[in-house]
């Protein structure tokens, strides 16, 4: 399970994957193609390696910036904070774990959400932050997501949900599990108003998050090479007692298996989402341009589609 790293010990500093707002170093090394990439260029490129197209994790704020019309985003999340209902203690207390996550991210939960406009279209964007406790879904996250969906419903906005999560948050027990149903009920209200709901599955999206709101977007978009699935790969390997094939449970795999509408390079999310939302809302095609992509994109898995 992806959460294992998080639960077992302090999260390792993923030097190549996380970037502070003020970069200490000028260059990063791409873990896929080993190229030295100028950090500024990487940032402009929405943290997609300009050499090989590898999708680094991207801070939630930067993701929202790259998606919405400049200056239109208003944060609405951050009104609730986690408690410790189970008084959960393992090798450490849940309270201490939460403190570290708060300190690391400056936020109260793994959810960052708000209203904004995308190519002029009113949307609510909700992004899960893997940096906060592995993006795991506790009561706070469930509540934040539910409120974001309710906001979209109330204000007639399309809902965009970007997932990155190892799944449920063990330290909140079955309360965490209940968030799967709670968020889904909220989505039902959104659907009843005919508002589009689009999910973007970033690396990783597994467990209870994959098995609830992530999977049931009107349109489900995968980020290239994102790990997606219900069971974690180690659990599966232990169950079937064989190693997993290359590419198993990746975005491209699930596109082929019929579960993802399309795999879309992060640099194209903005115009793709704008076009999809406008079409689903039966509105004129919005004017929106994409980031220019100067480098070869990862090879297309489908046989005939163009990667957008």
């Amino acid at each position: 399970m992806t959460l294992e790293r998080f639960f077992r010990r302090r999260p390792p500093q993923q030097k190549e994957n996380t970037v502070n707002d003020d970069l200490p170093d000028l260059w990063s090394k791409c873990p896929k193609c080993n190229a030295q990439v100028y950090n500024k260029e990487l940032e402009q490129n929405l943290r997609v390696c300009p050499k090989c197209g590898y999708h680094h994790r991207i801070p939630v704020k930067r993701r929202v910036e790259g998606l919405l019309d400049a200056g239109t985003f208003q944060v609405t999340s951050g009104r609730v904070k986690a408690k410790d209902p189970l008084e959960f203690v393992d090798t450490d207390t849940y309270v201490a774990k939460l403190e570290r996550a708060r300190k690391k991210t400056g936020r109260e939960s793994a959810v960052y959400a708000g209203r904004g406009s995308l190519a002029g279209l009113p949307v609510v964007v909700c992004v899960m932050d893997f940096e906060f406790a592995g993006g795991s879904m506790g009561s706070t996250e469930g509540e934040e997501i539910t409120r974001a969906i309710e906001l979209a419903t109330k204000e007639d906005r399309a809902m965009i949900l970007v997932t990155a999560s190892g799944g449920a948050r063990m330290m909140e027990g079955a309360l965490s599990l209940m968030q799967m149903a709670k968020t889904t009920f909220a989505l039902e209200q959104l659907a009843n108003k005919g508002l589009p709901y689009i999910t973007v599955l970033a690396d990783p999206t597994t467990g209870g998050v994959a098995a609830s709101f992530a999977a049931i977007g009107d349109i489900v978009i995968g980020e290239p090479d994102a790990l997606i699935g219900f069971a974690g790969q180690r659990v599966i390997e232990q169950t079937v007692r064989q190693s997993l094939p290359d590419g198993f449970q990746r975005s491209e795999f699930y596109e082929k298996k019929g579960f993802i509408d399309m795999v879309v390079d992060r640099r194209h999310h903005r115009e793709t989402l704008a076009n999809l939302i406008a079409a689903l809302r039966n509105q004129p095609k919005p004017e929106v341009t994409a980031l220019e992509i100067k480098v070869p994109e990862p090879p297309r898995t489908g046989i005939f589609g163009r990667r957008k």
Partner: protein
Amino acid sequence: MPALEFEKPIVDLETRIDELKTYGSSSNVDMSEELALLEKRLERLRSETYEKLTRWQRVQLARAPGRPTAMDIIGRIFTDFQELHGDRAYGEDAAIVGGLARLEGQAVVLIGQQKGRDTKENIARNFGMAHPEGFRKAMRLMDMADKFGLPLITLVDTPGAYPGIAAEERGQAWLIAQSIQKMTRLRIPVISVIIGEGGSGGALAVAVGNRVLILENAVYSVISPESCAAIVWRDAKEAAKAAEALRLTARDLEQFGIVDEVIPEPKGGAHNDPVGSSEELKKALLHNLEQLRMLDKDALLDSRAERFRRLGVFEEI
């Protein structure tokens, strides 16, 4: 029925008493005084054990061989069960059973997660761990209940959705999500009962009820104690510790509002008195169904949404 680990002292004492009785009657020595003392001691031991069950012991009871399975319960509480098969898409998954039945004459749709009662059945039932087609079958039966306005009763008993390659290939995550979503749309009374092991998303997929009931010794958890222990202490043998931490018993869940009602079991668990324990469950189903009958279609849907809307513990800033 093999005794569970923590029941061994009781079984040992029971054996001694039996031996003593045999000895007494064959040797013509009056052992009645000793026997009375031992019986009293046995009673105390039983009380001490079963009234102060640890969470891990509950987990063991919830999984006990011989504990009534969904099909056992269906056979005892319902009549005229007509099993319906298939998901109309890929296959028939024996880990989830379902069909039409009657509860005191009232037609209902049943969905049950079914573990095996012996090794052969366990293999056929995949130990109660459904593949995507099992959830799809459940969804189809939910649609049927909704179309004909029949109450839906789900019996939850699974270690979890099956974590295999084929299950993932066929979209286990998607099917669980779709099944939850389907349950958010039903305009019928839905009662879910955790009868044994409520294992994570695989359980929730069929447990989004207007009422969620639980048998006294059943458990419902986001992760199995073994997996939790393996993650935290790198040792599945620490499962007892994990079970404590996870607060997964009926009473724990009741506190958090995750279940609405705890249905009492006989001392030592449902398998010690399957008939009596079925009666309790039946009573619970009937009075909950009676209450839900007051609600119209919209109210059934809305109140289910409200029930789940409230779940979660956090603090406003």
